[in-house]
């Protein structure tokens, strides 16, 4: 069994690397066939001649296409994305400033999505077709259909503009420097309430719907009836027998959702003016900052590939029978 797990791990990491390689090649291909001078995609016309020639050398821009391609891949793997047009510093150090926020923000939202979806599904499955179940099911369909930017802007409209209870944008108040530690934390929390709700709502609906369906299917099995006949309480049946059976498909959904989360964070960060990768990417595109665009795309791609890998590994951890299927 251990050998098989190692084999699977090796195979999954290999395919992830191939996907990464294809991704980088695709980006290079796009950069070359897009209109305009390709060397301008790496070197800003505003840079000093010395720095410009340095970047030219580091990307082999003066030699043949094949060696440019080779150098491009080597540079990207080493984390050398060139110099950003707008920030005038290496792209990787720009991204370093913006990445932590997106990671923290996405993982908070991810946990909230799973937790709330789980809770709602558990409550509504206790009485299938009851009042609570029916209302939440309807609401989840609605929540799934609301685009995140419509939701975000309407939340700002209601809670910031009309009721004036929470701030509409930014991560901290302008005078946050003088706050004590706890005041700072509560300041962050107040600023993040609306963004987290915006990012989480559709995810909550997805988890709720999947989990509720699975729980209902497992509930219909005859082993539940037999357990009930043997005198187990409802609580015990749910906790010990129904939940473990229903939770598996949730994990594979979670893997897919994690990838979607990054693109959702992109829009949310723009609405609420948060200092994350999404806003960085959009601003880079709007200011035609090509090295930064490429850097952001590659880093986001790596994150998504890693999260897919992690989801697969967690899936195996919970259900060892999947190994055989994945190996083939």
């Amino acid at each position, binding site marked *: 069994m251990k050998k098989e797990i190692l084999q699977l791990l090796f195979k999954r990491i290999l395919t992830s690397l191939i996907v990464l390689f294809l991704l980088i090649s695709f980006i290079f291909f796009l950069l070359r066939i897009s209109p305009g001078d390709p060397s301008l995609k790496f070197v800003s016309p505003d840079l000093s001649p010395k720095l410009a020639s340095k970047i030219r050398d580091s990307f082999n821009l003066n030699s043949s296409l094949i060696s440019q391609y080779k150098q491009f891949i080597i540079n990207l793997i080493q984390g050398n994305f060139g110099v950003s047009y707008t920030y005038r510093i290496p792209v990787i150090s720009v991204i370093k400033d913006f990445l932590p926020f997106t990671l923290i923000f996405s993982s908070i939202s991810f946990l909230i999505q799973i937790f709330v979806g789980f809770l709602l599904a558990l409550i509504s499955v206790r009485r299938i077709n009851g009042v609570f179940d029916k209302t939440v099911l309807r609401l989840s369909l609605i929540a799934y259909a609301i*685009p995140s930017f419509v939701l975000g802007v309407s939340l700002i409209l209601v809670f910031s503009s009309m009721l004036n209870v929470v701030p509409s944008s930014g991560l901290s108040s302008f005078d946050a420097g003088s706050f004590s530690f706890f005041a700072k934390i509560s300041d962050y929390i107040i600023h993040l309430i609306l963004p987290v709700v915006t990012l989480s709502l559709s995810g909550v609906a997805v988890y709720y719907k999947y989990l509720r369906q699975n729980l209902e299917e497992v509930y219909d099995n005859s082993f539940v009836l037999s357990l009930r006949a043997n005198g187990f309480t409802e609580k015990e049946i749910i906790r010990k027998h129904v939940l473990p059976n229903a939770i598996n498909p949730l994990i594979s959904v979670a893997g897919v959702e994690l990838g979607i989360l990054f693109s959702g964070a992109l829009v949310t960060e723009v609405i609420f003016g948060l200092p994350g990768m999404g806003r960085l990417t959009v601003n880079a595109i709007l200011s035609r900052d090509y090295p930064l665009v490429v850097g952001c795309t590659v880093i986001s791609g790596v994150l998504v590939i890693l999260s897919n890998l992690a989801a697969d590994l967690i899936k195996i951890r919970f259900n060892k029978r999947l190994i055989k299927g994945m190996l083939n």
Partner: protein
Amino acid sequence: MTMRIKIWHQITAICFSLLVLKVNLVIKIFSLQLVFFNVLVADYSKAIYQIDFSLIDYFISAIMIIIIPVGVIFLRRRIKVFSLSLNFTSAIIIILAAFFVFAPLVANNNPDFQQNIGETKLLPPLSSVEVIHLKREVKPAQNLLDKLVKLKEEVIKNTYDESIIFADSLSISSNATIFQKNSQIILPKDRILYSDGLPVITREYFLLGTDEYGRDIYSRLIYGARISLFIGLGSVIISLLLGVSLGFLAGYPGGFIDTIISRVTDMFLSFPAIFFVILILALFGNSLFTVILVLGFSGWMSLFKIVRGEVISLKQKDFFISAKMAGLSNYNLLTKEILPIILAPVVVNLVFQYGSVILAEAALSFLGLGTGSFYPSWGAMIEAGQNYLTQAWWMVVSPGLCLFITLFAANNLGREIQLYYNPRLKG
């Protein structure tokens, strides 16, 4: 026996009410068509010169408003869809389709119509302003072409109109003084149009308010619906062609080609499409055409998976092998043997895809990367409204609501079709 409202009832009702409300416009469009064809017969090259997109648009919507109700009434027994009973989803979809076809008739104004911005900007819903009409120099029509141009000017709503001024009030003494919000215009008395000694003043109503440039939001919403649906249609067709042909190509011969195409698909699937879309739009610029193309190219993966899986399982079935033995060409095998069977999952997938493309286009426009700056687009309207949130909530609410209802209807439609093909599935 209870009478239930059917789909064809709603279609004919919409067409007839539009016809009654806009009967003047429809008659004018038909007379324009008549004059146009006269000119076309008389002087071909000059008539061709007069053709533009909006002229054809008006012609088509005027013809459609006659053809569609008649056609629906006659074909309602032949085509089953028209006799289905109406529900929320189908009602929304029919209204959207009506916006799509009849946009020139439904909309009050050209979506880009703006005049006297100071007077009309950021007006709340259901507000109105006075319209003061100026005298227009009318040259008598000398030939058919002049008549055509004059009629065209009357029918087709332009982005500006020299002969009207939006104002709060008007006072006439020695000069005519037109009062607007922050300014006044003084004109010679005889510039103003009079009828029976009184100046002609009408009221212009803005049903859903105006935006920061004084443009009518209602008209923009309708043209925005058109753009959204058009982009959705275009990119779904691209996804359909790509997904089905690649799926067939991978699933039918199997082996090496299958492995390569599947791996590439896995790459695209493992990566959220929006990053690709953004990268490509950043590099190639954002026109309507690139947006359609990029969204089409980013959505074929799930369709490919469905088609490939079905083809692999179908090619071992007896009926398929016998059809192959009978000597059908590959194209016929695909269209006659495989497509009818995989139609159901493909249609369901396409409907969901349609919804997600509309959402993606709106999100791109919202981020400033879509077609928002060239055409009225719901996403761009929300983006513009975000800057005026404290002053003008209606700029965000109405396009947001439209987008939400459209997506909700698309999701519901997908689920209903799924249920129709596969009744064992629980909603």
